């Protein structure tokens, strides 16, 4: 069954006397356990597409079925509940709450669960999520005490904690160095391979897009290519270590 089913999605922004067509009719099916990477230049409409897939925004026209349920015209409150239960977000800027411990950050989505989870249950799930990402010894650290890679792993743990059917990652490696980017991408790939989680990832870097099982590229609000991909080992090159350079010379 397809997790995401988009049918002729259009998004038009009215700006005074002229209108901007951010999406001009996108149709797309994404199945369970797919790792879809969406690439496109700035202004291509990939962010708008992600907002609609992430139920942060609703399309002007077209239909969107998420897990078979039409969410294209839901009121704000219901959209919030859909995001809470079915979608885990990973952002470029990590978006962790400052001066808040890692485990408390991971608990945030659980605070808004309906029905309400007891505090002990929230803490247990958050610690489990951190543990699965190898961060159990960092649970009580504040974001400022964590490296960029660790922060992004906390953010991924937060996206996973509610066991969503879909992970939406918006330029997740944008703020990371190459080595850490490889770590994070390998982690996402493992999540998909080991847990069958559906992942939609937006990036403008082809090397990152190459991790996907399917690569979609978008331009001027339309899908211009949609090709299956055999994920290869990273084409990203680690910069040579200072010690290696020193040894070689």
């Amino acid at each position, binding site marked *: 069954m397809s997790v995401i089913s988009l049918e002729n999605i259009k998004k038009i922004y009215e700006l005074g006397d002229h209108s901007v067509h951010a999406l001009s009719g996108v149709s797309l099916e994404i199945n369970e356990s797919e790792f879809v990477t969406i690439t496109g230049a700035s202004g291509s409409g990939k962010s708008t597409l992600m907002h609609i897939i992430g139920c942060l925004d609703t399309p002007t026209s077209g239909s969107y079925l998420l897990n078979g349920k039409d969410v294209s015209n839901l009121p704000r*409150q219901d959209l919030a*509940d859909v995001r809470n239960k079915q979608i885990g977000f990973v952002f470029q800027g990590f*978006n962790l*709450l*400052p001066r808040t411990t890692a485990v408390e950050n991971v608990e945030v989505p659980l605070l808004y669960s309906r*029905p309400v989870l007891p505090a002990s249950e929230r803490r247990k799930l958050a610690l489990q999520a951190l543990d699965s990402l190898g961060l159990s010894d960092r649970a009580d650290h504040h974001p400022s005490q964590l490296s960029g890679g660790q922060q992004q792993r906390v953010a991924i743990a937060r996206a996973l904690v509610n066991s969503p059917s879909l992970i939406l990652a918006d330029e997740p490696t944008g703020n990371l160095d190459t080595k850490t980017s490889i770590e994070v991408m390998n982690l996402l790939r493992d999540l998909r391979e080991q847990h069958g989680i559906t992942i939609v990832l937006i990036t403008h870097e082809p090397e990152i897009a190459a991790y996907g099982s399917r690569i979609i590229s978008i331009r001027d609000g339309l899908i211009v290519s949609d090709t299956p991909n055999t994920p290869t080992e990273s084409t990203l090159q680690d910069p040579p270590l200072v010690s290696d350079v020193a040894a070689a010379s």
Partner: protein
Amino acid sequence: MRERAHFLILAAQSLQRNWMQASLAMLGVTVGVGALVASMALGRGAQEEIKDQLLAAGANMIVVTAGNYQVERAQGAGAPADHGSIQREDFGRFIAQTADYYPSVKPFQFMQATAQPRFIKAHFEDDPMAEHDHPTASERLGDAMAGLGAAATLTLEDATAIRDSLPGVQFVASGVHENARIVVAADESRQWFTRLHGTEAELPEIRRGWTFPYGNFLSRRQVNNAEQVMVLGRVVADRLFGVSVNPVGEKVLLWNQEFEIVGVVGSRTWTAQPTAGDDQFDAVYVPVSTIHRLLNLSKLNTITVTTRSAGETTQISRQIVDLLRVRHGISDQMPDDFTVKTQAQELLGSGLSPDLARVVAGNMTSVDELTIEQLSSSLQRSNRTMLALLAGVAGVSLLVGGIGVMNLLLLSVTQRTREVGLRMAMGARGSDIAMQFVLESLVLSLLGGLLGAFVGVIAANVLETFFQWSTDISFLSIFIAIAVAVLLGMIASVYPARRAAILDPIGALNHE
């Protein structure tokens, strides 16, 4: 609500993260609540003081006096408005003197009302012309003395009967009153003519305005054993031993008998300052039993009764009349051989300062109709201006505090737009976000309120200790002040919370 209790923790955490701004906003609430608590304490203190003054002056008091004189008051003339209280006081003294020095004066006939008050003798036990259908006081008690306060018609048994058989009676104190010369035993050149009151241990309960700078009042044991102990009025203590000298333990002579001083009585309120010649503080107190023993008497001049509630004085005074008439065997045709006076009648002649008496009596048409409620409301009117001022200060402070809270929350919404966007992306509904801000405001105002209550209590104590302002802090007023602060916090949070709740998640997430 209960299941969302974790938002409260969330709010507290969020305030902790912004503790600097939060504490500044809280300061406003603290000052406001502090001012409110302090002003309510001052207001209640003022009311309590008024009540104390009235009770000190005897507004719930009934005095039964031996003998029966009735002052006939002119209708509509000589009313209290033209300082009738002062006249009346002087007039009362005249009666007392007349009665003391001319015990066998002939009874006046009942006269028609004229412009001037006058007195008549309605029942003179020793009047040879009078016909008695009951045993006279002399026959009953074998005592030839008669006259107002000197008529031997009241006994300790009467006092006991009043105390034991009338519900609603609070305290009863028997009294024998004489003029006496008090001599310091160690130095007989130091002496003072003053009023001697034989009384019981309960008297301080009746004289609410009393305080004891040195020692204590007569104890029950001392009264029961008829011990030769004495409490000096402040004026007497000052005259005999000097100002601010503790005379407790010293010996004085009364009727050439040695008495040990056990205490000094002074006034607690500014309305009744001890002055030479007054009946309370230019006076000495000894057990009534001691006087009875030394003089070999059993008569009483007065029985002083207080009622539990001031509203009952009229009813209880009627019951006392009925009780004593039965006890004295007086038939329906004959007048009482005692006089029962209630509250305001006595009030104007007993220790209330003339200024205050004028304030009280100035608005009253008839002194007899005064009730304690009327008395206090009349006095409270003058206090209302000050209370309004204090309440104004508190109100403005609270308003400023509320604006501070609202300002903090608005700033917080702007600064934390990204956080709001993130929470919304994670599935927070608008109402969840709104509740977070409302709860933050509630926590802030509750903490500010609690702190403010603390500050207010301290402020009230400082005012009381260093400026001698009467204050009275009630738990209710503290509760009200905190409730007002919380309500204010809630109102202040409505607009910021709503602004946060309607934020667009995408815009909020991309907010820098």
